[in-house]
């Protein structure tokens, strides 16, 4: 829909000039009369750009901005008016010379929106399942380099958070909540029909700064994406069987359109900065805290390592470390060029993109990405044989420091010494500190090359029967290295290049898939039947090689690991995964009113032991288009579309890693007495199987006033059982977890609402408003034997999975100045687990987005507000007690100082007061470590301007200005409220200026 109106917009602003041109060029034969008039919509607004053809002559024109037209025709001719989004209208002239035409909006627009459901397509109107979609026009409105970032706030039921603000970092995505206690909660990604493994392949030894994970989805260029569809309910996901439990994300790349070759050039540049710095203590406040802490602990003479207060450091000095260390500006430049076109038989699109950016940290570091996309479509003259090929190659080059300075910037003493000395060298201040910039001496770099190819051949054997073969191959190759030169050490250690260390990783993953399918479509007496059967064979192989080199004769040789004195191959793994399935679908539609959709899959995965590989999954979906019932049509004339739909079915989850059912030993990566060590891999359990997820959904969809307002509401209830978990084990078992199925049931249910409305729709001004809201509820339904299990103190039946059992703070003891807690078990002692009975939940209560799109003449303005109601950990969680040599938020100023005080913060200590340390430690595991972190964020704002084009250049030019994360309204004061990873660089605030040229 949105796409349609956008096309209209484009159409309208391009057409006036074209219309003139066409009028001038139309040569008519006499005897003819001039017929003129206006075209309006049903509410009387003039319609510009309406196609108007004289039926007998095949000549035509286009209505002007005010809806007027004028054409030569004979009085007996018939005029045909047509326009996208409106019903075509045939008007006999019947001798008139003035004609007023009113076009009716086409209420079957929904029928034209085709959704990709993976193995088949379905129209928005006839779908029985739950499928959400984001198109290129929405993706282009935000300056993102990972496709998942484009979905944030735009889809109901899809909760996405970024794991770091650094380029190349990953995203957490949960579609309808957390289903699995311990197995993966990632959806299945399918790019152009080919499964795309989303788990990182890098060696965590090399990529610490990104939290060990580099999102492979960076290997897909957002600018090359035509649309992203997310499949949510059983009806849509059951055909993916064992891999559909957490939803399916379908990514489709752009295709060529037939016609004259069209060249698109797209350039933009972005500035970005870290946002939401913490309000930390100033030097006088900080020093006061330190001195008071020592005084509280009864220490009069400051110890030798208390450089901040013992006189070693200048006590008058102040540095805003957040500004100094993470206050840089990111510059990003993106350039894309594409050519597309073709004949009716063959279409092509070729696109190339290059992007580069630096980081907020001081010094040189950066990220570059280049990609090429090629899409080819061919169909035989009779249209029975079709061939599609897409190839996508992305090179992602990430060159980052080996450490994230965000945490340091928030904890470094404000009077810590200068970073550089007078000679411009790193300042070590007589060994009194670890210069944080020394971390930047170490470097992390990775180059990832991702090739995704897909070929589809279809052949119409007889009318209605299609044979199809889907083939895919993906290949990801990554080289990464972490270089730790001796210069990262304080020169005091006297370390030379003999202490330089290099880690190198080489990883690759290749996967092929083969999916032969048969599709049959038949119609009879109001009945439409679609049948699909197919099978899947997939194999994925993964290899990792890890090298460690130590001791170099010079630090200039660190890029060449063969120069190391000692080289060790510490990792050389080969994993493979094989997957096989048969699947099918039967869809029956009667009179376009009653639709039944049956899907099923039987699949097998090599991740399970003998006898446990195969399982069956399936779903039933149904829809009733009640707005087609004549009774309802008569009773509710404003109701242009009404559908009630529901589905129920079963999917599975096999995200547990390969070979877990084997009892095995793996290489330890170290050497003893000349022997490479062998390490037991895991606790042995061969008897585990699929995790099962039963999904139920009902939905109501309404279109009002000719679909001017579209409403969709869903209720879903997913129950995940036979939980595949790494059951946490006590350390005495030798491991911290065991792979097994657990007889527990997790339920996710919720309500999702989506509204789209064209509030105003005229050629001069358009206003479209979209809203989505998700209210999820996660709950552990049952867990037999929970009390005696290792989960006894982590989970509660009836509560969400993400809870933590915490102490309940009862404030500061006015006498001792130490935190107090409720003694739940009344034994007079505060201890875990008995007194940790307060349940904290950091999952979202509700979230959603509001999209506003305005079109004013050649301007298009878009806003996306994202909102989330949630609680999150605050600075107290995982923090250290105030009083140590570590800066703190200004919150700590309101503290207990002497008997009788009851400030919210307990007395400062340097760690010599065990009661206070213990008090703080419990405080960090209490209700006080959780704060409201709800927010409303202006996620995206985009202003586009279509330059008026001259008559004959044929060039279309658009300028745009986009903002990302410009404004966040939140009561959460300790960094980014959305962000869950403490100590990592939060998502950046960005402004982008760009231009698009089409000719």
């Amino acid at each position, binding site marked *: 829909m949105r796409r349609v109106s956008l096309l209209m917009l484009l159409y309208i602003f391009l057409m006036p000039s074209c219309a003139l041109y066409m009028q001038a060029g139309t040569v008519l034969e006499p005897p003819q009369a001039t017929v003129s008039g206006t075209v309006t919509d049903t509410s009387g607004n003039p319609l510009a750009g309406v196609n108007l053809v004289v039926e007998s002559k095949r000549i035509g024109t286009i209505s002007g901005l005010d809806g007027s037209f004028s054409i030569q025709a004979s009085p007996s001719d018939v005029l045909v008016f047509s326009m996208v989004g409106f019903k075509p209208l045939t008007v006999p002239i019947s001798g008139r010379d003035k004609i007023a035409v009113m076009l009716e909006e086409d209420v079957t627009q929904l029928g034209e929106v085709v959704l990709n459901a993976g193995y088949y397509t379905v129209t928005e109107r006839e779908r029985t399942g739950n499928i959400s979609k984001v198109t290129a026009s929405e993706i282009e409105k935000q300056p993102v380099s990972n496709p998942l970032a484009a979905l944030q706030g735009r889809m109901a039921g899809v909760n996405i958070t970024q794991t770091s603000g650094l380029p190349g970092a990953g995203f957490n995505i949960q579609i309808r909540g957390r289903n699995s206690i311990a197995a993966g909660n990632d959806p299945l990604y399918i790019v152009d029909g080919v499964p795309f493994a989303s788990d990182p392949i890098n060696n965590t030894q090399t990529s610490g700064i990104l939290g060990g994970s580099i999102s492979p989805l960076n290997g897909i260029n957002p600018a090359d994406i035509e649309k992203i569809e997310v499949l949510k309910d059983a009806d849509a996901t059951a055909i993916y069987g064992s891999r559909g439990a957490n939803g399916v994300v379908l990514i489709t790349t752009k295709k060529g359109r037939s016609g004259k070759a069209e060249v698109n050039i797209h350039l933009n540049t972005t500035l970005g900065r870290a946002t939401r710095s913490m309000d930390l203590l100033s030097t006088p406040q900080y020093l006061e805290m330190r001195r008071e802490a020592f005084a509280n602990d009864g220490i009069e003479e400051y110890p030798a390592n208390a450089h901040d207060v013992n006189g070693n450091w200048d006590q008058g000095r102040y540095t805003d470390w957040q500004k100094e260390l993470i206050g840089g500006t990111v510059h990003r430049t993106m350039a894309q060029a594409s050519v597309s076109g073709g004949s009716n038989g063959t279409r092509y699109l070729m696109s190339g993109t290059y992007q580069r950016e630096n980081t907020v940290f001081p010094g040189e570091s950066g990220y570059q990405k280049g990609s090429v996309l090629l899409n080819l479509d061919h169909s035989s003259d009779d249209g029975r044989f079709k061939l599609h090929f897409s190839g996508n190659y992305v090179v992602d080059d990430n060159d980052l420091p080996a450490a994230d300075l965000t945490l340091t910037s928030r904890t470094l003493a404000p009077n810590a010494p200068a970073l550089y000395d007078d000679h411009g060298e790193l300042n070590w201040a007589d060994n009194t500190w670890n210069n944080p910039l020394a971390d930047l001496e170490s470097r992390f770099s990775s180059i990832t090359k991702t090739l995704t190819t897909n070929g589809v051949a279809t052949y119409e054997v007889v009318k209605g029967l299609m044979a199809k*073969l889907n083939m895919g191959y993906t290949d990801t190759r990554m080289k990464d290295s972490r270089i730790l030169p001796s210069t990262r050490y304080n020169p005091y250690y006297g370390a030379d290049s003999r202490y330089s260390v290099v880690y190198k990783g080489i990883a690759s993953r290749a996967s092929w898939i083969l999916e032969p399918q048969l599709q049959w479509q038949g119609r009879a007496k109001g009945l439409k039947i679609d049948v699909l059967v197919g099978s899947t064979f997939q194999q994925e192989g993964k290899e990792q090689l890890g090298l460690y080199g130590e001791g170099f004769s010079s630090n200039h040789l660190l890029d060449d690991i063969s120069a190391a004195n000692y080289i060790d191959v510490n990792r050389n793994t080969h994993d493979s995964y094989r997957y096989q399935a048969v699947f099918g679908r039967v869809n029956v539609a009667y009179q376009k009113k009653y639709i039944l959709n049956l899907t099923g899959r039987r699949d097998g995965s*090599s991740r399970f032991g003998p006898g446990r590989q195969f399982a069956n999954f399936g779903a039933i979906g149904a829809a009733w288009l009640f707005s087609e019932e004549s009774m309802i049509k008569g009773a509710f004339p404003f109701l242009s579309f009404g559908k009630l739909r529901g589905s129920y079915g079963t999917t599975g989850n096999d995200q547990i890693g390969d070979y877990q059912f*084997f009892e095995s030993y793996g290489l*330890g990566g170290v050497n003893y007495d000349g022997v490479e060590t*062998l390490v037991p891999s895991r606790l042995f359990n061969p008897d585990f199987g699929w995790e099962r997820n039963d999904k139920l959904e009902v939905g109501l969809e309404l279109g009002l006033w000719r679909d001017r307002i579209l409403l969709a509401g869903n209720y879903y209830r997913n129950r995940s059982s036979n939980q595949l978990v790494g059951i946490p084990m*006590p350390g005495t078992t030798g491991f911290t977890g065991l792979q097994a199925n657990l007889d527990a049931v997790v339920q996710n249910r919720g309500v999702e609402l989506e509204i789209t409305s064209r509030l105003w729709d005229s050629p001069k001004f358009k206003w479209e408003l979209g809203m989505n809201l998700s209210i999820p509820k996660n709950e552990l339904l049952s867990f037999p034997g929970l009390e005696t299990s290792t989960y006894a103190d982590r989970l509660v039946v009836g509560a969400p999975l993400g809870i933590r059992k915490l102490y309940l703070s009862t404030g500061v003891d006015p006498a001792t100045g130490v935190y107090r807690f409720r003694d739940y078990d009344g034994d007079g002692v505060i201890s875990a687990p008995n007194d940790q009975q307060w349940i904290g939940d950091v999952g979202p209560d509700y979230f959603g987005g509001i999209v506003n799109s305005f079109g004013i003449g050649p301007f298009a303005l878009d806003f996306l507000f994202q909102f989330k109601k949630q609680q999150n950990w605050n600075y107290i969680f995982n923090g250290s007690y105030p009083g140590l040599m570590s800066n703190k938020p200004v919150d700590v100023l309101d503290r207990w100082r002497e008997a009788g005080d009851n400030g919210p913060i307990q007395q400062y200590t340097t760690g010599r007061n065990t009661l206070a340390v213990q008090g703080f430690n419990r405080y960090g595991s209490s209700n006080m470590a959780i704060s409201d972190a709800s927010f409303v964020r202006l996620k995206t704002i985009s202003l586009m301007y279509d330059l008026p084009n001259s008559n004959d250049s044929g060039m279309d030019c658009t300028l745009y200005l986009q903002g990302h994360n410009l404004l966040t309204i939140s009561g959460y004061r300790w960094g980014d409220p959305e962000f869950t990873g403490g100590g990592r660089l939060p998502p950046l605030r960005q402004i982008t200026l760009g231009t698009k040229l089409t000719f």
Partner: protein
Amino acid sequence: MIKQRLLFKLYMTLWLPITVGCTDFVEMELPPSQLTGEAVFNDPATATAALANIYASLRDRTLITGGSRGIGNILAHYADELDYYGSETASLHDFTVHSVLATNSEVATLWNDSYNLIYACNSILEGLDERMSLPGGHRAQIKGEALFLRGFIHFYLSQLFGDIPYVTRTDHMVNATIGKLGASGIHEHLVHDLEESMELLPIEYVAADRVRANRFVAMALLARIQLYFGYWEDALSATDVVLGATGQYVWEEDLGNVFLKGSKGILWQLSPGTPGNNTLEALTFIFEQGPPTMGALSQSLMDGFAINDQRAVQWTKSVTDGTDIWYHPYKYRARGPSGSSVEHSVVLRLGELYLIRAEARMQLGDLEGAMADLNKIRGRAGLPDLAGLNGEELETALLRERRYELFTEFGHRWFDLKRFQKAGEVLGPLKPNWQESHLLFPIPQSELLANPDLRPQNDGY
């Protein structure tokens, strides 16, 4: 068109049988980088590699590692051997000022990593029992070492945590709910494991440089265990046997050679993983400029050296910035790589054996014999012989000799203070936080949550 029909037929003929036919497509073998448990214990080389994992882990990361997270460094700060100069936010600070809580992550790591190695020992023992295909000599050697290492790790855990589970199987059903044993139960298991180990292990070393256990190594550990648990006679007899093996073990008279890898006074040492490297202890303790950034030998330790004690000269080294002076341990001198390695981490050496015998003799009333053993140690340090001490004086002298002979070696000082009930007297004035309950570390809170049978928590936590 005909061609296309043909293609379709081909497509159907290929597809249908494949789809219906092969279910073994998803059956999988292990990849080349992993071995089944069965394969590991059919081959002496791979079985040895499984054992090497335990030695390497003890060297690099667990319990007695010479790195900064090992008990050698932690307990030196927890007791009175090292003063701390590092960051207050580092975990070592918590140990230095005695504010170790049940949630302390280093304590949890000590616990979990130790039991992980115990699992590795048990996996080897069960693997050897199930698969008899390994040649007898290899079986006895590997089994003897696994038993020795299982006892060694349990011994340290019991000293750090008090009552602990003694884990002898890999079965997680049993180990997940295993309860704690008291001192006598632990002692019984330790003695059983070490005696069986001694029966299996040969007198000779199976590897060069004494980097793997032989019968005397097991016996020396048994002697220490018997001493710690108060079985003086057993400690004495075991020590006598080891000290009697003069063919293998020779008293090193030169202090500067005691820690060289070729020293004949060494019973068991851990070799570095990288050829040409030396010990982690040297990297942890030695600093070349002042002020130090982690630990330096404490004032009380340096002040307490007797005049002429050559260990102050040979085993410590001073560093000055012009105004202040600091000392670091210098038992291990080779810091970082050298052409070929000169020092390994010495775990058991003759010096301790003499001190064990001295203590056992003292406890059994043989004061003269005890003094003779102490004089062996003192003589090498250039100190005059002791003579005519009474019981109380001897105890003071013994404790002192242990302090100066074994400083910064795997927490000997801490265990001595604990065993002689002197911790409060010595550490009370130095550590404002001192409590008697600090004699034991807390059982990690996460473990108490995961296995309620480990409750109650140690006192005071």
